[in-house]
């Protein structure tokens, strides 16, 4: 396999090098360093407001970074020469909510990227969309509008809409946080499937059990910096930082009482 890593020598597929970001006076990211190899699944955990979403949004240039650099697939995002739309074709992102386009049917949602960005024909785009919807068992809903679907179904459509672009990297931002508990598992099942086919992913999540199961690496964000990173077993069973311990204790407590 000729990975980017081997082609570029030292480079990982994603390299985040000393990234900081401010919203006005507020520093949201503080000197973040992170490498992600192809086929790796990195989970970002951390309290609300710790900067997980912002980091993901920086990765596909929905937010600008002030200092540091991000390199994706050998291409620096801060040179000014980067083609934003080209970059975003490689990176699929799924948000917590408000994801699907409400004025389009499920099928049209999934077709839009292939048709308008990849420039495929209507027939090709449609067959890609049907195929993906079939795989998640939602082909029957192809011609429904998103508001007729459950939250879990909508989120699964949002995932395959991103997959229809054949991305090399998927960013998932708390995609189950807005869902009723009984709808969470169908979405996680789909993500699990992606890890099995070797999709490179960065996942911000509050689902600790899930992170522990699928992650090759877990990063604990605290106040905009990565306080601790490591294998899931190590982070969850033997965190070195006191703050990681107290965060995990809090979250696991909340899960137990829920």
């Amino acid at each position, binding site marked *: 396999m000729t990975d980017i890593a081997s082609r570029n020598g030292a480079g990982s597929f994603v390299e985040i090098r000393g990234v900081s970001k401010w919203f006005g006076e507020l520093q949201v990211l503080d000197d973040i360093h992170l490498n992600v190899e192809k086929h790796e699944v990195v989970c970002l955990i951390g309290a609300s407001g710790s900067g997980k979403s912002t980091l993901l949004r920086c990765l596909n240039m929905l937010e600008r970074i002030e200092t540091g650099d991000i390199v994706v697939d050998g291409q620096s995002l801060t040179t000014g020469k980067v083609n934003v739309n080209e970059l975003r074709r490689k990176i699929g992102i799924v948000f917590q909510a408000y994801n699907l*386009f409400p004025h389009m049917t499920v099928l049209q949602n999934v077709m839009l990227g292939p048709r308008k960005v990849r420039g495929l024909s209507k027939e090709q785009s449609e067959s890609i969309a049907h195929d993906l919807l079939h795989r998640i068992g939602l082909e029957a809903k192809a011609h429904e509008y998103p508001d007729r679907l459950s939250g879990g179904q909508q989120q699964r459509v949002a995932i395959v809409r991103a997959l229809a672009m054949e991305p090399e990297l998927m960013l998932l931002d708390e995609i189950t946080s807005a869902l009723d508990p009984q709808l969470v598992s169908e979405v996680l099942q789909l993500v699990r499937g992606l890890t099995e086919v070797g999709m490179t992913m960065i996942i911000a999540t509050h689902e600790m059990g899930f992170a522990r199961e699928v992650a090759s690496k877990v990063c604990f964000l605290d106040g905009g910096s990565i306080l601790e990173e490591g294998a899931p077993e190590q982070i969850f069973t033997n965190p070195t930082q006191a703050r990681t311990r107290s965060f995990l204790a809090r979250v696991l407590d909340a899960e137990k009482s829920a």
Partner: protein
Amino acid sequence: MHALHQVLHAFFNPHSFTLALPDVWAGFQVNLRMMFIAEALVLVFALFVAIVRGLPGRGAKPLRVLAIAYTDFFRGTPIILVTFIVGFGLPGLQIGFISSRSFTVYGIVALTLVYTAYVSEVFRAGIESVHPSQRSAARSLGLSYAQAMRYVVVPQAVRRVIPPLLNDFVGLQKDTALVSVIGVAEAASLSQQFSTQNGDFASYVVAAVFFILITIPLARFTDHLVAEREMRERAQAF
């Protein structure tokens, strides 16, 4: 009793109705033509102005300022003044093509200028009401700014603003009579002529009925859309 009789005679004389009808109807067709042309132009230009006003980035600032100046000017100026400026000013300039149009054309121009300003604000509100995450979702699929606007933001915005838009069009339809003061032979001015000749006011009533007949369906249709939307939103809330 006498007063009532006088009113009936002056405004609702059946004989005058029949006499006035053909003239006023002929005039009203001019109103109809003006409103259709102006409405079509307004839709296009207003969307354009609204989009320009929302363009991001420092480079687009002059364009944004221009769009703001345009809307401020034409929303702030009474339509009758705009009509005078266009209808008397342009011919006065004596620049071939521009100065040799008919009053109907100048009327349409005045209506389009003013209502483009109103309707662009309606479109702008619609565009701003589309949740920013829709834009993020579109951009992160790799759609360009223009594509995101075209396929995701504008279609949603337009759907939302149809009721206020139709309200503005009711205003535009009535103002076809107003901009005709510069000399367009349309329903209002023809009914005035007829009234002077005939010595009663039945022709005004005829003209009024024509206007009402086209604005009422539009108003009811708008109500219907609003009610439908409320129902949908309520259904979603549960």
